[in-house]
């Protein structure tokens, strides 16, 4: 038990009277010049409450101070094509896209990397919880989640701690919320050993008229905090403030990682949706990072600019919390609403129906100030925009990496390639049984993919797909992609390759790509070489989106991902959302019937640099990643959408890691229906050897299965669009993958190799 608090409240009056008092700003993560700026803004020293607010809101995580100057490109490189269906763009809790028939979709991907390393289960669970609250706060019903995961080496002892924790955390929280998990990625690489990446995506749907924004408008409207009570979890820096001024150590024992309660969040979802239906809220904001500090300052900044809060009204789980701790607590499952006084009664009727606790903290004012009282005295009196909007902005130094020319010169083209059938067969199996290409169903079978009854596609198909309208069949598809190895070799091209792959994956399901959310995972921004990687990746993404004509609607930046001094590979995870008129026309990634023709769309070049083949077979990472042609990708996507719309495709599978060899194996494994493949014509047309034809990772390629009766229509469609196409095989009732003249692999053998790695290490 802690001793009774002797904490003296640091009021605004007190702060003005004691300018000389030393404050622990450095321990809270503020630089000396930042602290000085706060003093200039206020014309006095900040109170400890104000210091708490500024320190969290000006943190890298909340303020984007190192990335802002680069992220502006997403707002500048915009064409009318990109904005025509955009209802809400970057800067809100999540972007909103009009998908037609009066429906809109909102989606966002966000990182929860560091908490998931410290405490994998709760870190990952609350990552899901946080992103889902962003979706609720737009007025939408959350309908699905996805996750993009990066772990250290599959056989490292610590990976055996992190992976099961993260997977069960996502499983626990997502399943208890009743949200289907429709896909994602799981990668292993030693570069993420002490810094796994847990990027969670959530997507929601709403009718156009249900859109809500985080605004505190209307002087006299009430500010209501509802949901879980506020406790001492998730307080990082606030404990420093607390222990500076009173009993040493009591704060330090509190967990810095938040603890999630998905049941509370599920009830909160239903409660919020009922509040929206009743027209009972004027503005709403979820509480995530920086808790009440963030919610009050952002709501006030986005509205009429003033708010008066009585902090004593916050319902507490732990009555010994100090004001600073209450301001900074990141307790989960809380929301803040702005409610008109005459609707307060209706509001409380709904919250009590759902047994959700709520309390009025204060009201919207016209003063332009955010004023917070505690025990009858004023402890915060600031211009909210200086906290939430006008934080510091840094032009971090950028330096071209000293090592990169050397790495780029070391091409995988020089590595020995397999010649005969036996060697090709062995390398295909080696790749298929490698950690990154192996079956991920050990992970995905722990996620509910059925709940809500609208899942049309999920893992292992190229993208997840969800029906939005039960009458018309209108729906959306989503895919996430990133290849850190490519980005290490060339962050500009690597980011574009991630964008192109996610875009192609969505197109392969039969949907039309419409919007992007990204989660940019990088090392320290204070490292000029990392900053160069970041700047190049953002530029690549912004240029790429402009060329493809799809907007970035939001996302998140995660810096300081490194093990010791070694930064992770730059890992910009790109999520692409697409729309489809009728999910009944969706296309799976593998064929279900024998006798279909297999076609390869696109051409193959000698592009083995950064490939899975180079990495797995030779332990090699060097050269330059495959070329990107976004105009070709656009043409390909339009071709696929047209073919899917006309029902010409039995299957479509994007070629990516592991090239054609892995795409064929996965196509066979999807439903256990075999294939006979002949590549002589491809080799002659593209001027490559057989190993390159199988393992090269040239972009712009998709493997499709076409029923015989649709053959003529399909080839005419390809000719009409001028996209390269070649028949390379047929699907077969013999359950095997046969590469004519080279090898035949039984489906059962492929399946065993494919399934073994994750089950061996984690089951």
């Amino acid at each position, binding site marked *: 038990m802690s001793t009774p608090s002797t904490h003296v409240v640091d009021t605004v009056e007190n702060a003005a009277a004691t300018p000389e008092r030393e404050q622990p700003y450095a321990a809270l993560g503020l630089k000396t010049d930042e602290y000085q700026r706060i003093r200039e803004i206020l014309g006095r020293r900040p109170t400890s409450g104000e210091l708490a607010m500024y320190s969290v809101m000006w943190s890298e995580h909340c303020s984007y101070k190192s990335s802002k100057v680069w992220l502006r490109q997403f707002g500048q490189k915009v064409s009318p094509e990109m904005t025509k269906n955009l209802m809400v763009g970057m800067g809100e809790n999540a972007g909103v896209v009009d998908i037609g028939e009066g429906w809109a979709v909102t989606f966002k991907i966000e990182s929860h990397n560091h908490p998931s390393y410290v405490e994998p289960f709760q870190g990952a669970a609350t990552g899901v919880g946080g992103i889902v609250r962003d979706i609720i706060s737009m007025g939408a019903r959350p309908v699905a989640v996805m996750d993009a995961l990066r772990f250290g080496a599959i056989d490292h002892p610590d990976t055996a701690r992190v992976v099961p924790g993260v997977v*069960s955390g996502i*499983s*626990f929280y997502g*399943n*208890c*919320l*009743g949200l289907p998990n429709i896909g994602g990625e799981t990668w292993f690489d030693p570069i993420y050993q002490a810094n796994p990446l847990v990027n969670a995506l959530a997507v929601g749907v709403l009718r156009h008229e249900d859109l809500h924004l985080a605004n505190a408008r209307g002087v006299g409207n009430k500010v209501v905090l509802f949901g879980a009570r506020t406790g001492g979890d998730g307080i990082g820096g606030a404990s420093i403030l607390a222990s500076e001024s009173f009993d040493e150590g009591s704060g330090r024992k509190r967990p810095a990682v938040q603890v999630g*309660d*998905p*049941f*509370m969040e*599920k*009830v909160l979802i239903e409660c919020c949706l009922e509040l929206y239906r009743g027209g009972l809220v004027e503005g709403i904001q979820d509480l995530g990072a920086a808790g009440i500090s963030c919610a009050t300052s952002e709501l006030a900044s986005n509205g009429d600019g003033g708010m008066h809060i009585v902090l004593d009204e916050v319902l507490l789980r732990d009555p010994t919390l100090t004001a600073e701790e209450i301001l900074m607590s990141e307790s989960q499952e809380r929301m803040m609403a702005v409610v008109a006084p005459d609707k307060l009664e209706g509001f409380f009727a709904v919250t009590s*129906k*759902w*047994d959700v606790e709520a309390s009025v903290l204060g009201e919207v004012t016209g003063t332009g100030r955010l004023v917070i009282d505690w025990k009858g005295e004023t402890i915060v009196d600031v211009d909210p925009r200086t906290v939430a909007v006008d934080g510091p902005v840094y032009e971090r130094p950028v330096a071209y990496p000293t090592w990169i020319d050397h790495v780029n010169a070391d091409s995988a083209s020089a590595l020995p390639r397999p010649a005969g059938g036996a060697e090709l067969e062995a390398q295909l199996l080696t790749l298929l049984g490698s950690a990154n290409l192996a079956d991920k169903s050990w992970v*995905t*079978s*722990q*996620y*509910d*993919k*059925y*709940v*809500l*009854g*609208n*899942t*049309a596609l999920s893992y292992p198909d190229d993208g997840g797909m969800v*029906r939005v309208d*039960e009458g018309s069949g209108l729906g959306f598809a989503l895919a996430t992609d990133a290849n850190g190895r490519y980005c290490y070799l060339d962050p500009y091209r690597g980011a574009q390759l991630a964008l192109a792959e996610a875009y192609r994956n969505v197109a392969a399901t039969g949907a039309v790509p419409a919007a992007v959310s990204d989660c940019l995972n990088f090392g320290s921004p204070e490292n000029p070489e990392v900053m160069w990687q970041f700047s190049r990746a953002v530029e690549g993404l912004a240029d790429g989106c402009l060329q493809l004509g799809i907007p970035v609607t939001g996302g998140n930046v995660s810096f300081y991902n490194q093990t010791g001094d070694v930064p992770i590979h730059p890992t910009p995870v790109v999520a692409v959302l697409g729309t489809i008129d009728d*999910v*009944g026309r969706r296309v*799976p990634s593998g064929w*279900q019937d024998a006798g279909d023709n297999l076609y390869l769309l696109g051409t193959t070049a000698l592009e083995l640099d950064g490939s899975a083949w180079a990495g797995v077979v030779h332990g090699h990472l060097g050269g330059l990643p495959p070329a990107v042609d976004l105009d070709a990708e656009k043409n390909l996507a339009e071709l696929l959408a047209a073919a899917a719309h006309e029902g010409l495709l039995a299957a479509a599978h994007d070629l990516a890691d592991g090239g054609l060899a892995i795409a064929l194996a996965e196509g066979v494994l999807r*439903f256990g229906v075999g294939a006979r493949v002949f590549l002589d014509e491809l080799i002659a047309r593209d001027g490559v050897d057989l190993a390159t034809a199988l393992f090269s990772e040239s972009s712009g390629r998709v493997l499709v299965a076409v029923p015989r009766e649709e053959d003529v229509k399909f080839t005419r469609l390809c000719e009409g669009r001028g996209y390269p196409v070649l028949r390379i095989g047929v699907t077969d009732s013999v359950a095997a993958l046969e590469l004519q003249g080279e090898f035949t692999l039984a489906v059962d053998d492929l399946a065993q190799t494919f399934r073994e790695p994750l089950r061996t290490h984690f*089951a």
Partner: protein
Amino acid sequence: MPARIGVVTFPGSLDDRDAQRAVRLGGGEPVALWHGDHDLQGVDAIVLPGGFSYGDYLRCGAIAAHSPIMSEVIDAANKGMPVLGICNGFQILVESQLLPGGLIRNDHGDFVCRDQRLRVENASTAWTSGFTEGDEIVIPLKNGEGGYIATEETLDRLEGEGLVAFRYLDVNPNGSLRDIAGLTNELGNVVGLMPHPEHATEPGFGPDMPEAMRSGVDGLTFFQSAVEAVLARV
């Protein structure tokens, strides 16, 4: 007049809207019931849907079993009204002692979601009369605590009286004793099972079948059976 089938929503229910959809697809009229009410709104049959009622705190289904509406549900069940408990609903039926035994954490410790083959062991209940005994069906399963347990004596009695309604085939996904996936009561009006029939009612959104992906609709028979049972009683 169509059969009116109530679907109870508890705080933390997740598949309640899916059960309502399945009722509709099965030819019934879904009626939303609220856990806090004491009113069954004159329904002809009741579904307790899947989810994590009350966060599954204490034990799965334990708190929901004491919800206000459950006293009416228990009365109606004892008087012969068809009641189906799916997953969490099965746990609630067991906690309410409408069905015997208990459900515990899966033996392997993980949540599992899979397309599960089942054998219909009793085709004379209100919810299975559309099947034939011995039918093999595919129904999605998704749970963390689906391991069925009971005393040897109870298990022998259940087997002897033909009260095992469904048994797992191929794989026992959670360590259930004697591969029990679902049970019925002596009257045959109450059925509980861990797999989710409401997720095998609509082509395109059901389990994968040998003929085509996501085409499984074996679950539809549950709801059609109940509709017929209700109409037969009138």
